[in-house]
């Protein structure tokens, strides 16, 4: 299976593993706590003691970057999983049932999609208030529209196959048809989409945090870290770009891995 792995894929996997380890073992790696004020000097310069300097409150930026990996990735992962649970289920149900059920679900989704996604999320968040759980649920619902559209269109091709008809004729429940007959056949597409969606959710959360509605201070998060230290840009300091780079690197790594997976999955299908 690993025989055909490309260098880009290796790069992607390495990045993902490094991020995962960082997120898991954040307290062991980070020299200081994420909310700990360690220096009386705000915006302290890079030094041996504070690797990437300190922020506006005198907290260690290196430590906060590491903790942010944990916060951002965990919340994004949870939101993406929710997105897929909702989107995929509804998408396949729509494709299998067809008719009125399909029309009703699809029009509701169209209505949500007609509005710019970030605005939908901002409005919903300002109604329910910004907590971690609310953030996950709101993003999960708003982003599920995209997954719904994808899984519905892929599932359409599977739902017309004779084996789905056979399942209906032998008396299977809708749940069985959705999860046992259709889902396994569209899984590779969904896994690839999962990687992409995950990146978008990371970006959405960072954008929300940058706007002040995402992960709330003092919890460290890459998006809010960019905003907090944005002033430094005017002084020619690259520090605010570090959390941005962290987001970019993760997005690239995940995409390389996903590309490889798609290629591998489609190659597998050719053999059959």
């Amino acid at each position, binding site marked *: 299976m690993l025989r055909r792995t490309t260098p880009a894929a290796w790069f992607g996997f390495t990045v993902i593993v490094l991020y995962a380890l960082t997120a898991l073992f954040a307290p062991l790696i980070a020299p200081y706590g994420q909310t700990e004020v360690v220096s009386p000097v705000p915006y302290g310069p890079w030094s041996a003691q504070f690797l990437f300097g300190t922020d506006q409150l005198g907290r260690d930026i290196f430590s906060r970057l590491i903790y942010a990996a944990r916060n951002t990735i965990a919340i994004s992962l949870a939101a993406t999983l929710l997105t897929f649970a909702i989107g995929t289920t509804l998408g396949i149900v729509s494709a299998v049932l067809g008719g009125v059920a399909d029309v009703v679900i699809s029009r509701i989704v169209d209505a949500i999609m007609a509005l710019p996604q970030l605005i939908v999320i901002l409005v919903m968040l300002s109604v329910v208030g910004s907590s971690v759980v609310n953030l996950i649920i709101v993003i999960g619902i708003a982003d599920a529209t995209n997954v719904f559209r994808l899984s519905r269109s892929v599932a359409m091709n599977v739902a017309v196959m*004779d*084996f789905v*008809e*056979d399942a*209906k*004729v*032998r*008396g299977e429940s809708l749940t069985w048809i959705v999860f046992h007959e259709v889902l*396994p056949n569209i899984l590779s597409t969904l896994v690839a989409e999962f990687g992409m969606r995950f990146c978008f959710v990371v970006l959405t959360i960072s954008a929300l945090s940058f706007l002040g509605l995402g992960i709330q201070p003092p919890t460290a998060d890459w998006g809010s870290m960019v905003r907090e230290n944005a002033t430094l840009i005017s002084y020619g300091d690259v520090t605010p770009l570090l959390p941005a780079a962290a987001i970019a690197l993760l997005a690239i790594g995940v995409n390389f891995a996903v590309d490889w997976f798609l290629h591998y999955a489609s190659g597998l299908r050719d053999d*059959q």
Partner: protein
Amino acid sequence: MTNEDGLLSISGLKIEAETPDGWQPIVNGVSLTLRKGEVLGLIGESGAGKSTVGLAAMGFTRPGCRIAGGRIVFDGIDLMDLPQSQLRALRGARIAYVAQSAALAFNPAHRIIDQTIETAVLDMGVPRAEARRNALGLFAQLQLPDPEQLARRYPHQVSGGQLQRAMTAMAMTCRPDLIIFDEPTTALDVTTQVEVLAAIRKAVQEHGTAAIYITHDLAVVSQMADRIMVLRNGVEVEEAPTRQMLAAPRQDYTKSLWSVRHLHKPAAPREDVILDMRDVGAAYGKFRVLDGITLSVPRGRTLAVVGESGSGKSTLARVVSGLLRPEQGEVLFKGAALPPTVDRRSREQLRQIQLVYQSADTALNPRQRVRDLVGRRLELYFRMKGREKERRIGELLDLVELGAKYMDRFPGELSGGQKQRVSIARALAAKPELMICDEITSALDQIIQGEILKLLMRLQQETGVTYLFITHDIATVRAIADEVVVMNRGRIVQQGPKDSVLSPPYPPYTDRLLASVPEIDPDWLTRLLARRQEAG
């Protein structure tokens, strides 16, 4: 080439395919020669390497395959040494290819005429208007109705038989020296097949085009070919002029190919009725597909429903299995009215009627192992679990002559015949009283067809199951049926015991259907066409 009128000569051709275990030979030392204007039939079961040899005649191999040895010389040109660019120029212009499924070979986004003349205009530099005129001439020659109109249509707007002829016209526009026909009529029903065969034969003869005709159907190849070559497992079995081969096949394998069509089951009289349809009508939207269907299926026997595509025979199966709600009439199963749709039927009613599909490729979920495909019905209908279920799956696989060792295979790891056996085992798992077989042998080659039919007959003797057998193939009907229903345009034309339906006098439609079934006799098509001409 020493032979003056030799067009194609292949010698010692070896082709290998890439597998996880390295390169495996799929064609092993095939040699053939073809003179100008000659038609060679390549015949064999699926996997024999017929298509691979056919493609190699154009200097082409499928992805994942390579030519490992031998020589391919076309009109003095060694195709193995030719650079790709010149090979491409040769294909289409001097060697053309007609694929099995014209529906897949045509681009649905372009008009038929544009695709037909594309090679002529782009590669040969023929002026557009002239190419168009030629193509329309070919359409007419291939007996396509109203060529002008047809040319402007998109591929989905014409029938399968017309599209197959349009594709032959496409292959002939550049006046190629050689055309490779790869099962061009396999996907068509018998009455359409006759039209296409006659059109192809006439066009090829008139233009003096040489052809390689690939098929698994002996009756078809004997109409088309001057010589026949039998292939098996990538090796030549024998080669002879058509008449000689038909009269006296030398090899046992060839004889076995010939004998398949002679399966014949004596019809048994009916004792008891299991399924009764009374004046059933059905429609898709406003389009009526079934009208006044009244028939009864005798228990423990086989009722064959025959007709060409569009006759409503598959719709009949959908009504019985509860997938389509009939608009009128009633269906009685063992004397009791059967609810019209699947979701109103009890699990017990669903269990008793099982459906086996034409294409096992789409009927078996590719992500489930044989174990799960067969075992699911045991769980669902008999609540079997663990070892008991395991044992029963093994029994069922033995029953369809597969064996328990296939339990952990995915459908993709099985051959076409094996997949159909799994489908049958899956239906048997429910211990059904009525099995609806919807064209279950039509996607298989002759030898496998024979094996599956024998299997079905044995299963009927052992379990007493009733078959509602839907087919367009009269040979299959002869082999398996007790009673026959002939359908045309949603209505029953004729019904009764097999022997009375299949012997004269016939109603006109049955006559046309029976006459269209190719016979293994090189003069059959000529005779049929002459007879039709007389009839006017």
